């Protein structure tokens, strides 16, 4: 790991006080070329996190506020007839940015949601017969309110699967909150902080992450986890092979952040709650257990190969 990344984590930690782990996971997600879903109540710093990452890593940043009347063209852009040149001119929407914050994604209708999610998957936008590539790197941070809040369209499972990770930020600890309350404007502090990285370097890091070694023993462990979720009656639906790929990808990025060129079981365990928490559906008596607790429970049942 380059010193820039350590610097980025440190700086972000200064902005989001007491949320080192969340910052690290978000960075992992970014390095693994995945998209991030933050599920939490309003006001805990979702937007700040997105903004901080974009700023520190020198990426351009767009925010889309999802509402129930949001249309796909509001995200992707719209073709407008240019009377001077007598043709249609495509006006790029807010999605053409390196970091896109899709705020309160579950407030929009499924139609608008899927416009975003398709762009996320394809990393390109096709409209009126023309295809436009999205910038590189392309990183979507979506936030959503807990699904039981009023006026939400919960994301279907297939779309949740598009996010590499789902995390929640949570309230800060008491001392962190005190610092937050006593300190000055966080946004201002961020603007003052120099950019630590450019998008060129970030792409290089992403390529290095892909080269982190995954041993057979670890693949076996990963398979044990997948098999366990498929065989146990606790889960309504086992994990998909895509989930397996996501797990290894995230584990690689985590190991890279841990300054290692090989993945350890610990890396897999560290990213697992965030990576599979939203992909697992429980059934039976496990219904009441929340995502993280569920995954920890699962990990304790599977011995290392």
């Amino acid at each position, binding site marked *: 790991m380059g010193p820039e990344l350590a610097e980025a984590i440190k700086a972000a930690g200064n902005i989001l006080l007491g949320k080192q782990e969340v910052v690290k996971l978000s960075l992992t997600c970014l390095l693994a070329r995945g998209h991030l879903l933050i599920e939490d109540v309003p006001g805990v710093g979702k937007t700040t996190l997105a903004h901080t990452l974009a700023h520190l890593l020198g990426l351009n940043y767009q925010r889309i506020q999802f509402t129930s009347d949001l249309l796909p063209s509001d995200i992707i852009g719209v073709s407008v007839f240019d009377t001077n040149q007598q043709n249609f001119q495509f006006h790029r929407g807010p999605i053409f940015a390196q970091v896109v914050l899709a705020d309160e994604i579950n407030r929009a209708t499924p139609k608008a949601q899927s416009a975003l999610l398709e762009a996320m998957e394809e990393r390109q936008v096709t409209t009126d017969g023309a295809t436009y590539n999205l910038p590189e790197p392309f990183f979507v941070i979506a936030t959503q309110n807990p699904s039981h809040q009023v006026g939400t369209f919960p994301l279907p499972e297939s779309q949740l699967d598009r996010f590499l990770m789902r995390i929640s930020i949570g309230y800060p600890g008491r001392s962190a909150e005190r610092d937050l309350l006593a300190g000055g404007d966080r946004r201002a502090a961020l603007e003052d902080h120099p950019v630590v990285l450019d998008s060129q370097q970030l792409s290089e890091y992403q390529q290095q992450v892909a080269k982190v070694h995954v*041993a057979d023993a670890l693949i076996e462990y990963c398979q044990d986890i997948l098999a366990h979720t498929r065989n146990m009656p606790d889960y309504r639906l086992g994990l998909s092979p895509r989930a397996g790929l996501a797990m290894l990808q995230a584990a690689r990025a985590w190991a890279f952040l841990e300054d290692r060129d090989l*993945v*350890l079981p610990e890396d897999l365990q560290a990213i697992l709650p965030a990576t599979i928490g939203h992909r697992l559906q429980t059934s039976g008596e496990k219904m009441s257990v929340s995502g993280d607790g569920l995954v920890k429970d699962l990990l304790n049942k599977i011995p290392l190969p």
Partner: protein
Amino acid sequence: MQIADHTLTARQHLLVSLCAGLAIAPHTLHVPLPISLFLIFLFVWRLTALRYPQFQPGRWLLVLTTLGGVILTFSQYHTLIGRDAGVGLLTVMMMLKILEVRRRQDLYVAVFISYFVIITHFLFDQSMVMALYLFSVMVCLTALLIEINRIKPSATTLEPFVRTGIITLQAIPIAIVLFVIFPRLSQPLWNLGIGSSGTTGLSDRMTPGQIAELIESPEVAFRVSFDTEAPAAEQRYWRGLVIWDTDGHSWFNRKDQVRERHMQLKAHGEHSYEVFLEAHQQRWLYALDIPVSSKQRFRLSQDLILQRREPVRRSLTYQVRSTTEQQNKVVMPGMLQRALELPDNVTQRQFELVEGWRANAKSPREIVELALSHFNKQPFVYTLTPPRYLDNPIDQFLFDAQEGFCEHYATSFTQLMRIAGIPTRLVLGYQGGEYNELGDYFIIRQYDAHAWTEVWLEESGWLRVDPTAAVAPERIRFQLRNDFGTEGSPAMFQLDELGLVGSSLRRFAHMLDNANIQWRRWIIGYSREHQFSLMRNFGFDTLTPLQWSLITIGLIAIPLMLVALRLVLSGRKQPLPEIIAYERFCKKLARLGISRKTYEGPMDYAKRAIGERPDLTAPISRITALYIKLRYGPNADKSQSKKLLQQVRQFRPGRQKPGT
């Protein structure tokens, strides 16, 4: 893999001691008394030591006790080899092993010796009851073995037994197949030069009162199962041996007179039956009067006695054909002379009695009839408790007391006939028998012992004459009742007038006897001959015994070899050396109380271990780093795994944290 630790719980200690005690228990009856007492002493010592650990013997005391046990065994048998001494030594050693069971390994040894001890019981006793007992001990041992191999103790006591039951059920088909097809020795193992006691029945020397002694015994002499219809009670004379000579007191066969000639009778023999003879230590075999041939080709002597070369030292099964219709005209030179010899103490009274008959009779047959009617008309009493005739038994019986038993009637009748010049001989055997309707066979007990005579008449050959029947015809038709009155009182006979309790008791006894006999017939008696005849039924009759043996051994050996091969091949897939080394490392740390959780990654574990033992930071980090590189890194280097093994070997953490 998580291996349970090596110490045993108090309950497991107690269970293994009890199971081993059960396995040994029946041997205390076979070994000499001092050894039995020694075994019991050791067992009590063991139980005491379990309760009060201060009594647990130390190493030296144990060595001394072992030495004492060997010396004791040797002093009792004067050897340490052979069946009896071997079993004595085995039981003593096993009890000593139980005494020193401390760890898991000891317990395995104890259980497996117990399995072996179970087998040795069959050297002494092959009865069904013993087999059932040993089977239940085996089940207990297996359940114990299952229980101690569990990481967590079973929830209920029943659980290991259920598991054992499943294993046993799975094993039964294999056991049956092996039992049926595995090549058998022509003689069972337990008969190799090994004597067994068994009760003795009739002997070849008859003194007055001898049969009366036998009559008190309800022991089974033999059982008979008829293939054809069984003859009526008054025809069921079981011929044992023929006695010719007398000294006026007892009756016997003079050695110099016995000629070992053997017969081949041409008669067909309309009765075909199987005899299950108990050991009686004699060479003659009992058969329905008169035997014609036996399937086992036993020799038939000139006086028509079925004989074996060896005394019957263990129970024996044989098939015989007999005839009750044909006449026995076998006569050898000198035979009739021998059947006329008289002792020196024949009195005047006897001659006069016989003279009276001769004067009135025209033929020998009429003399016989007159003699029988003499017994019938004179006030002769049939009693099981006759007075003792000491000087001249026959004379005293005939003229003074006139109270006697089959042997008195038979001997005196023989002597009177000889005086009359009719060749007569004495036959000993059994008469009658109790019918077991459950198993369709007859039980002949010692109290069915009987003596009768055979007279030689020109026209009919040797003719069976039973003078007892002239006095007490009930003796022949009914069972003797087994209660004895005062001396001289007439014997009572058992009629079929039993009450409900009596008849159900008898029914139960019959059931038990039947189960036993079937056990002996089909399990113990399943011999090489049975095996071959069974194979013939399946069409393997072209095979010689040797070929058959080779084929069965092959059939058993090939699957076993395949299984073994598979085990060997699967054993090739050894875990990687770095895993072995790392597991050893974890075990070493576990001994310090820091055991790795199954899901714990190496880094987390190392962190935790270092947290507990900061003094071991350097070796733990070094080993963990190397292991991680080997196990999870790219391009593992073989020499590195050796290095890891070496490092783990050198890792010898002290039990205590320094400074605490």
